[in-house]
């Protein structure tokens, strides 16, 4: 597994940091700390899991 590095100010860097931020919000939702409406407001769409 190779390691790459990218500037946080680059489009790729910004997208990756957004992915992490989204994940933190989804995890907070799964822990019951925030409502799904917070995810909706951020444009994070969950789908029927199974």
């Amino acid at each position, binding site marked *: *597994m190779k390691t790459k590095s990218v500037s946080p100010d680059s489009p790729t860097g910004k997208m990756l940091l957004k992915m992490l931020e989204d994940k933190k919000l989804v995890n907070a939702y*799964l822990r019951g700390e925030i409502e799904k409406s917070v995810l909706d407001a951020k444009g994070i769409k*969950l789908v029927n899991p199974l």
Partner: protein
Amino acid sequence: LSIPYNYKRVGSTKVEFKTDFGLEYSVTFGEGKGYFPHHPHLAEYLRTVYFQIQGSQESKIPVDSRVGATITFLILQYFEQNPDGALFFIHDGSDGKELGRKKKFDVWFRKVAPDRFRKENSVIEVGRAKIYISILFRQGHPLEAELISAFEAVGATASEKPQDLD
């Protein structure tokens, strides 16, 4: 092979299960299309998957092979229902435990589906953040080359370092 825990659906977007040790896990899937803006035609195939322990994680989590069996079972269920689906994983490596998590997941998955799936992994440093990403889909997927291309495009402008973690 360990027996998966029983799970229950909670609302339209969550699955939960409780372990013999009293820990509760939640699992959900999300749309991943926004993460591959240059490959919009793959949007219908790509999903992200998240799993999370409820409550505080300050105490040590007991070793429990049934957790891996359950999460793997749920992922296999997803592929049963979406054979041409692809799952995208993203993890924050800031706590230094991510490589261990990746290995644990790979062990879980190899036990139940050693040859059925292809999994690609990458590590990208973004400033001080170390981000682990993976993609998982079935062997022989009709869009295999495109999925790999889309995955490799994440961080394509990045500079590659010589270190190799495998």
